[in-house]
């Protein structure tokens, strides 16, 4: 083997094995080849047709029109094809008895997820590269500026990567094929609504002759609420920064969720996710507090508070679905005593530790927001946000704990502990629509006769928190739910913390290395 080949081999050693395999398959596969050829053909036809039909002198519009359509084709084809391709492959690899043998190698779940993601990035780059010459041509045809082209391509690229991460999570989920298809359909609808509208907005801005900065501002304005206090350049860039931070957080959390799903149940699979969530919470919180103080605008801290309340309310349902007993592998690494044990408890996989971790984060979120309000930054809107956030978290905690209580009440082994969250969600759905339905049927006068009559029947439904008139009562209900849930599970929670101790000196396992015979036990 030549030294050059050796150097190449050494370089390839540093690459992610999964990415290497996926890229080899992409390179040798016919599907991707035909896809790329098809796209290049379509682009050539489209640009050629546009040039021919606009050769009569309207040159200013040609570049803009061509760019808008090319960008639309590029974004939608990547958004639909790349996540579907990567997610479908992963789902096929993990389907029941067809489970791919990659999952019983020494390769870590983190490498598997990053390998899949890298291959998605490479595939997206490949598709983008087929469009770049034509997109560059639109610049020379005039009507669109370079910063718009660059900014919009970056946005599309990031969106595709995000969607791919979502597809990886869906592909890795241990649910049936039917459920995966159902969930994928939901995500696709969301994507088409979220990203599709963004793309349409951008194309329409570019189509009207907007510049890159304007296009991005329109985009951020479309995705988030309008920036308070005008649309000065700094504000626009702050919003873009917010958008990037938000996307990064979602990407990081999706990555950690996918890794946690692929990690063996016995391992401390939640640690990475919890640490990432805490870091995101801290960084975003620091940013939100700073912006609130600098601009004396409650918008940022309110946004942060409600966003994380929603995340934590949902997290409670996943928390109760974690293992109801700490595995021996977790317990083996428990420090003997003191704050190290507490820290290990909060970061160890297990329903009790997850509940405590998210509860602590929720309380800190409310505390920080309240302190910002107490120091005079912002107005009564902040108080409303704190109330709504507290209510959301209390409802989330309450229903998830009820799910936990129901599962623990069932005979042992009847249902797996991972169903606790699902039971809690079921109770949430029942409590949300039950009183409303009963109200409409049994007390139609009170329900229908006034415009706000139905609000009296929203007990148990977190949406009730949005109505000022009923918020107080429903907050009390949320408090009763969560306190009741905590009381009902208090003994179990306490036992869990007590069981989180290092095991007594483990006996060294005798290993029989000599040749033996088959033996029957029992």
């Amino acid at each position, binding site marked *: 083997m030549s030294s050059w080949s050796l150097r190449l081999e050494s370089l390839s*050693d540093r690459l992610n094995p999964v990415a290497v395999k996926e890229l080899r398959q992409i390179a040798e596969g016919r599907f991707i080849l035909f896809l790329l050829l098809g796209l290049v053909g379509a682009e050539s036809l489209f640009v050629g047709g546009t040039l021919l039909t606009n050769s009569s002198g309207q040159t200013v519009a040609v570049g803009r029109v061509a760019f808008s359509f090319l960008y639309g084709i590029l974004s939608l084809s990547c958004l639909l094809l790349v996540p579907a391709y990567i997610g479908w492959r992963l789902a096929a690899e993990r389907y029941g008895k067809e489970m791919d043998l990659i999952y019983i190698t*020494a390769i870590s779940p983190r490498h598997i997820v990053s390998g899949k993601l890298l291959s998605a990035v490479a595939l997206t780059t490949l598709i983008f590269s087929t469009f770049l010459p034509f997109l560059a041509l639109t610049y020379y045809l005039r009507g669109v500026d370079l910063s718009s082209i660059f900014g919009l391509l970056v946005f599309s690229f990031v969106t595709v990567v995000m969607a791919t991460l979502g597809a990886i999570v869906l592909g890795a989920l241990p649910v049936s094929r039917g459920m995966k298809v159902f969930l994928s359909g939901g995500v696709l609808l969301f994507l088409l609504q979220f990203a599709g509208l963004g793309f349409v907005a951008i194309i329409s801005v570019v189509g009207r002759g907007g510049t890159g900065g304007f296009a991005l501002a329109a985009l951020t304005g479309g995705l988030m609420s309008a920036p308070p206090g005008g649309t000065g350049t700094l504000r626009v860039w702050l919003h873009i920064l917010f958008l990037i931070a938000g996307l990064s957080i979602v990407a990081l959390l999706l990555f950690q969720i996918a890794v946690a799903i692929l990690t063996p149940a016995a391992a401390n699979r939640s640690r990475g996710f919890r640490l990432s969530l805490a870091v995101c919470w801290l960084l975003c919180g620091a940013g939100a507090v700073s912006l609130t103080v600098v601009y004396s605008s409650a918008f940022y801290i309110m946004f942060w508070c409600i966003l994380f309340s929603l995340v934590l309310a949902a997290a409670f349902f996943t928390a109760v679905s974690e293992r109801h007993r700490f*595995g021996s592998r977790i317990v083996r690494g428990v420090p003997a005593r003191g704050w190290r044990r507490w820290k290990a408890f909060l970061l160890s996989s297990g329903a009790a530790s997850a509940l405590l971790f998210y509860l602590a984060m929720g309380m800190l979120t409310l505390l920080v927001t309240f302190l910002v309000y107490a120091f005079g930054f912002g107005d009564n809107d902040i108080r409303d946000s704190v109330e709504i956030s507290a209510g959301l978290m209390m409802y989330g905690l309450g229903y998830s704990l009820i799910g936990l209580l129901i599962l623990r009440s069932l005979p042992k082994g009847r249902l797996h502990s991972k169903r606790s969250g699902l039971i809690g969600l079921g109770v949430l759905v029942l409590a949300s629509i039950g009183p409303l339905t009963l109200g409409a049927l049994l007390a139609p006068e009170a329900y229908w006769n006034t415009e706000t009559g139905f609000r009296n029947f929203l007990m148990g439904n977190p949406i009730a928190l949005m109505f000022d008139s009923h918020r107080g009562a429903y907050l009390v209900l949320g408090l009763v739910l969560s306190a009741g849930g905590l009381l009902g599970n208090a003994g179990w929670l306490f036992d869990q913390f007590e069981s989180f101790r290092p095991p007594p000196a483990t006996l060294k396992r005798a290993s*029989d290395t000599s*040749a*033996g*015979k088959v*033996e*029957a036990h029992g």
Partner: protein
Amino acid sequence: MKVEVRSLKRYFGSTKAVDDISFSFSSGRIAAFVGPNGAGKTTTMRILATLDDPTDGDILIDGHSVLEDPEVARRAVGFVPDRLPEHSDISAHDYLDFFARAFGFRGTGRLRVVEEIEEFTGLLKLRQKKVSDLSKGMKQRLSVARALVHDPPVLILDEPASGLDPRARVELRELLKLLSEQGKAVLISSHILSELSEICDDAVIIEQGRLLRCGPVDAVLEEDHLASQVFVRVLERREQFHEALLEIPQVEEAIPSGRGIEVVLEGGQNECARLLAQLVSEGWKVVEFRHRKTDLERVFMNITRGEVQ
């Protein structure tokens, strides 16, 4: 290296695919894992390979639980499934190269390991062929090669001989013997029991998820009291001899066969010896007394009912 299956259970709803089975096997020996279709062999093997989780129970590989330390188990086990999962658009060499990378082989070490394995399994000439284009036999070889890439001390083979031609079967048998001599603990399931009898040291028989019998092959055969069969030929008075045989309490069946009589009697080799002594002492001129060796297939047929869940 010792693999211990402890009170393993795997339920799919109301179906008990594996129902509280326990056995163990160790290095340097080949254990046959035998049972009718749907007996729970594949499920047990998949749990051993960490591809599935049990409802209850555990498997220890040299003391390490496959549930608590699956990463350790994965390094120790090479698993050959009954069917190689579909891999399109990748050559046999790249496929093995990927698994070598996945097990941490780097640089020239990786290249050497892959080449050695290709040579060992006879895949060198087919290395550039796509996996999807390989014949069933070659795919089986590739599967064995993949399982051996990281030189695991435990090898689990699920129906490796199915679909192989006679020559490939003989080669597989030789390969397994060689691996066993190298000190690997091998667990193999197959429906071709006559072949298993020849190479296996131990046998584990299950049906409907329950363990029926396990131990060294000789002991399992010996344990099968129902199946002792001898061929007896006397010099004269064959009809009277047949009637006399049917009078002996331990004789269950006596069927004339050619110039002699096939006798099925309760018990093992000791009972056979006792019968011969009795016949001689009664004055029968026994000129041929041949113990038909019980094989794994007969034991299997005797103790299983062929029922599926």
